[in-house]
Each structure stands twice: as C-alpha cells, then as structure tokens.
C-alpha cells in the first residue's frame, strides 16, 4: 500500500505514462476468482508474456515445508509452488519489501510460518529460488528491501527495468538497488548537528541524537530516507524515533530491544561500519567536551529552548 503514496505522478499515472501494463495486482485489479486463475493459466502456458513478477510478503513454506500456511485461494495450490512456476516465466523477479526479499519480520522469533525470502533467507543466499537462480532476463531476484519500501524505490526500479537500464552493477551485495542503498539513513538527518557533538536524547520525543541511547542505527543503515523523505516531509528520525535498519536482512532480530542502544563500558557497540573504533571514541569525547550549550540544552528538550546565537560584526569605525 505504500506505493499508493507516490506523488507527482501518482502510482497509476507512473505506470500508464511509461507503458507499463499492470497485468494483475491483488488490491487494484478487477479480475477475481476464475478470471484470475485463467490469467495465471495463460501465463504458465506461454499465451501471455510476463515481464516482471513482483512479490510482496514472505514465502510461507510451513508447516513442515508443505506450504499449507499460504494456499492460493480457489486453486488448492500452495502459493510457493505458484511463485516457483511464475518465476520461471517472468523476465524479471522482484521482491518488494523486507519480507519478500529476506523473509523479514515474519522470520523473527521461532519463525512459526517457516517464512523465507525469494532468494535469501535472512543474510544467507538460497530462499525459495536458490543461490544460483537467475531470471530469464539474466538478473537475480531484485531485492527492493525496506519495511516499508519507499514508493519511489519501487517505481523507479520498475521504470529502470522497463527501459532496460538496470544491470547487476547497479545492485549491491544483497542485490538491492544501489540507487538507494549507496546512501546512509544518516545522510541528511536533521539531528546531524547533535550527532557531531554527541548531544543525545535521553528519552522519546527529545530533539537530540538517538544513536547513543535510543537504538538508532541510521549511521549503518543503507537507505536514502533522510534525503528522499516520506509522505511529503517525513522520515523515522524526523518523526522522532530510531532508525531500525529495516532495509537490512535480519533487521527483525537485532538481539536487543529496538529502542535501546546496547553498550559495552558505556560505548555503543553498533558504531559506524567504516570508521575505526578508537578514532570514533576519541572524536566523541573531544566533541562532547566542546558541545555548545545550545545543543546540550536542546538535545534533552522536546522543543527548541536555545536559538542559534547571532554573530556580532565588529564595528570597523572605532
């Protein structure tokens, strides 16, 4: 449903203006029941060409690999078998969201549904289609991970595919489009100044950086959420809560509470991935010592208490 939030142009216009025919979507299409089953049959018997198979939601293999946890209504077929069959026909197969790509939130805890992703099970390659699977269009499953996905991650990737401008060079090591995973959530975070000085919020709704105490993973999370923005002007950080790294495989089991930063000897264990730890610690203690009063006060306040100072020009005519 996140894709319906697309703006200028909206989702339907994006598709129609770029000659993409949405053959069937469970929420938007007219065809139901027998009409849909006939369409499925036509694709499986090569009467209709399927350019792209998009899956939302994880693949349910349970119980005991039978697939009974997710049957295709009216057909008696487990959904995973239908997906295997369609993936053989589709020129490209695309996982939309962290469930379809990596198994996601449904894999957490005991994974009661035996959920998996299309070509990954968490961080491990495999999933439903297998490690070496490649689509008839010569691409692995394209993993538009995120929980949820930004509508434009989905639409722009579909357009790239339709214009034949997407190749493996543009996918990262988890086959996610680099168009959004070459960035960090940290980029463009409005709390960056607080981060620089380690001026941290101590509880929800405060303005300071959320990394030190409140579980924020924005400095590690691969996505452009704070430069692309959501629903006009939002992002998790702008909404006042931590980034939980939802574009990453296995984000659903961080090994600690989502909104608390785990620490060893007072130092957060999840530091930026490409910065030497000793440098980070040294810089942090230096920055903390230099924190302006404005940031120290505002960090633990729910609104701006101290405004930026006015730089006084020296009067030259003395």
């Amino acid at each position, binding site marked *: *449903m*996140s894709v*319906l*939030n*697309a*703006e*200028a142009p*909206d989702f*339907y*216009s994006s598709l129609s203006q770029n000659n993409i025919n*949405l053959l*069937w*979507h*469970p*929420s*938007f*299409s*007219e*065809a*139901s*029941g027998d009409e*849909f089953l006939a369409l499925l049959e036509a694709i499986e018997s090569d009467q209709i060409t399927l350019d792209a198979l998009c899956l*939302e939601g994880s693949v*349910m293999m*349970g*119980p005991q690999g*039978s697939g009974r*946890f997710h*049957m295709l*209504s*009216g057909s008696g077929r487990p959904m995973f078998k239908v997906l295997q069959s369609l993936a053989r026909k589709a020129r490209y197969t695309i996982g939309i969201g962290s469930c379809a790509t990596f198994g996601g*939130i*449904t894999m957490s*805890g*005991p994974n*009661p*549904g035996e959920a998996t992703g299309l070509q990954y099970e968490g961080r491990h390659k495999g999933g439903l289609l297998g490690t070496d699977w490649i689509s008839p269009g010569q691409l692995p499953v394209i993993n538009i991970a995120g*929980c*949820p996905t930004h509508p434009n991650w989905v639409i722009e990737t579909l357009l790239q595919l339709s214009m034949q401008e997407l190749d493996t060079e543009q996918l990262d090591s988890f086959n996610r489009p680099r168009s959004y995973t070459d960035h960090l959530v940290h980029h463009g975070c409005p709390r960056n100044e607080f981060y620089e000085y380690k001026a941290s919020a101590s509880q*929800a*709704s405060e303005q300071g950086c959320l990394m030190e105490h409140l579980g924020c993973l924005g400095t590690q999370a691969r996505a452009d959420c704070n430069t692309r*923005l*959501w*629903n*006009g*002007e*939002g*992002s*998790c950080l*702008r*909404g*006042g*809560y*931590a980034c939980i790294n939802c574009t990453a495989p296995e984000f*659903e089991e961080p090994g600690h*509470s*989502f*909104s608390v930063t785990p620490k060893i000897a007072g130092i957060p264990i999840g530091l930026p991935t490409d910065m030497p730890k000793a440098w980070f610690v040294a810089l942090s203690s230096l920055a903390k010592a230099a924190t302006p009063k404005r940031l120290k006060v505002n960090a633990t306040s*729910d*609104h701006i208490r101290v405004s930026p100072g006015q730089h006084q020009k020296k009067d030259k005519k003395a």
Partner: protein
Amino acid sequence: MSMDKKSPQPTRRLLGPFNRVEGDLEVQVEVEHDRISRAWVNSPLFRGYEQILQGKDPLDALVYTPRICGICSVSQSVAAAQALAAAMNIQPLANGMLSTNLILATENLADHLTHFYLFFMPDFARDCYQDKSWFTPTVQRFKAQTGNAAAVVLPARAAFLHITGLLAGKWPHSLAIQPGGTTRPLEAQERIRLLSTIRNFRHFLQQTLFGVELEQIIELDSEQALQQLIQAHPDSDFARFIHIADDLGLSALGRASDNFMSYGAYANADSHLFKPGLFLQGQSSAFNPQQIREDLTHSWLSSAAQPKHPFQGSTIPDTDESNGYSWCKAPRLDGRVMEVGAIARQMVQGHPLIRKIVEHNGANVRSRVIARLLELALIVPQMESWARQLQPKQPFCVSAKVPAEAQGAGLVEAARGSLGHWVRIKNGHILNYQIIAPTTWNFSPRDGQDQPGALELALQDTEVGDEKQASVKIQHIIRSFDPCMVCTVH
C-alpha cells in the same frame, strides 16, 4: 466462478481468490434452488505473529505489530501502545492523545477513501452491467486502474497522508505512537501546516465525493433527506453510488446478524468521539470486554475444551484439526456473533441516518458503504478541532518503565472495526500476546454452537440465479465489509 443454473441437489462451489480485499480470502458456498444455503469463509494465510511476540521486550510490540498490515498499520500501533500504557499504568499526555487521534484518523479516512474508489466501486464497471443506463459513465469514472476518479483521488489521498509525514515520520509502520504519547512534538507553524492539509482534504471531499459541505452530510437524518440531497447534487461520486445502489437493490443484499459492537473510537482523557457499546436486537447496551471469547472449533488451531478470553488465549497451528476450515478464529461476545465496522460504530453512537436506514433493512451492502462515507464527513471537522487544540510549547510524550509483571488490553477502532491487543508481561518480557482484528470478527468461521460468522450469514440466502450476476453479487457482499485479510489471521 461457475455455478449450475438449476440444481435439484445442493451443489458446492469453491470461490477465490478475491482481490481488492487486502489479502487472501477463499469462500465455499452451497447452492440450493438458486440460493446460497450455506457459506464457509476461509482465511488461507497463517504467519504466526502471536508466537513471534512471545519472549520479546514488551516495547518491541510497537515495532512488530504495525507490520502485521500495510494498510491498518497505525491502528495496530495504537492498540499496542494502549495495551502497554494499561500495563504500565500511565496515560498519554494531552498533546500525545490529540496527535495519536490525528494520525489514526488519517489512516482510517484514507482507508475509507481507498475502499470506496479503488476496492468497491470498480465492480460496477464490470461487463455484466453493460446493459445498465449508468454503465458507460461508471466505466469512465470507476473502472479498475483506468477510471478517471483515480487521477484525482490518488493525489488527494497522498497529500492527506502528509499528516503522517509530519506527525508520525511516515506511513505505514511508524514508531511515533508510544504508550505515553507521540515522539514528534510540533512547532507553532507546523500546526498551521497541519490545519491547511486537513482543510485541503475537506475541500477535495466537498468538491469530488459529496458535492456539498461536509456539514450537510453530517446533518442527514433520514432516507428522505438523503434522497433529496442526491437529487439536488447528482454529480457527486456519493450520488453516483446511491443511484447505482438503488437501481440494483443493494439494500436487500448482504444482511448479517444486525448485532453491532464498537470498542469506542478516538479516545481522549475521559471519553470517546464515538462511544463504546453494543447494539443488540434493536437495543443499545453496554460493552463488557470480559465477555470476549475466542472459539477455535473450526480453526486449524489447537483448541482447549472451552473458548478462552484472549488474556488466556493461544494461537498454535494444528493442521490435523478435522473440523477446521480456516486459520481464522471465531471471536464471540457473550456467545454472540458481532458485526464491526463503520456501520457498527455509527449504530452504537446513534447517528440518525444510520439508525433509520438500518432499522428499515439492516446492515447491508448499501448501508455499510453509506456509514463509511458518513465517517469521512464526520471526522474531518473533528480533525480540524484536534489540530487547533494542540499546544506547540507543551510536551507530547511521557516516558515510563514497563513493570516486570503486568497485563493490559488495548481496544481501538480501526477503519474496518474493533481491534484488540491483549498483553501479559512476566519477568520483563512478553508472556502472551493475543490480537483480535476487525475482520476476525466479520469473517470468522463457525463456532462450537455451529453459528456462522457475520460474512457467512450475510451470504446465506443470496439469490444466485444468473451465473455472472451471482459472482459479482457475492463480491459486492464481501467487499461491503471492507475486509482486511492480512490482519484477520496475522
């Protein structure tokens, strides 16, 4: 769907998949003398959220439960936050409550709008209606994916959801709603922006959906007043629906038990905008959450001898349950099947138009849709009022510790009806977490007393003579509930 024209013997037909129902749905019907004699509703997807939540940090429910669904995400957040607040024995701050109501109302109204334009109306543009006088304009306006309404509705919907960008960071799957309030305090000029976004949506509703001021819709108090309004303003989408509904006799389609329940919608410190309660056999009565039981007789779930209250409930799959035909449970209130949703909320609240039309011919395909559209008109002015009440310099959230042992329930109204979360905490972790979603009530299987669920009842007795018409009639009935199958079995 295929159906024998004249069948001396009862015949059974398996129907599905149904799209535009948010998730997976399968229905089996038995047809006798051109009428549906019995129906069995199956939710064919099981994921196991309740098991996933066991042993987790209680506050992590705020991360997991919204992700049950991409369309009712905020409702799940609010129910989780309320259950935790009850367990923590705290109340959200006034600003936090107002902001929560604004975020929840945005989701609920966006869902009502999506249901009407994208899920429900496209069925009238199906070829089986091509001999109707209204067919050609309906195709132009509402045909799935190509109708011209979408070109104005999708931008209006997306612009309205900017409220969630401002107050909740994003939609769906926000962590902004907390037991003590919301994480996003507002500055004074942001409140102005919020107000102007709400007014912009009001303008769209008045221009496109209703053709009149929202207040004129709110004031409707009888079928006669409704007919007068439609005649005076025939070019609104609301009027187009009423015209089609009356021509097809949709008020005679899809009646269920007419027992209605609401947990109460849009809470403030001491009351609700729409009050909690029941409307049973023509009478208002009080709602007592202690009377809720989950009956698993016909579910593929391990069941105890007696139906249990959700605090004691469990959700353990068992495909060997020989009486099972759905992953869905059968929730009952004091043993009764309840219908939930906009129509139930407005029956309990006592809106004059809804009370009158339901008194006349019950909850049906037509009246359920009217109730939903009425809520669009009722709630937008309230949102304007809530936005004005926000105090920008005051706090929005209070923090507190989760006790090592506690329990709490969160009872809210999602777009589709009553949503409940029940959490029990032991040793600082979740011991048990049970969820009953609105469509679990409406699309439940039979219970131990063999009482069919609300949709099963609504399908019973439907005349299904002509094959094409029969198929689409069944779809009208199903979609009139605005089901969310993803939430149903979570």
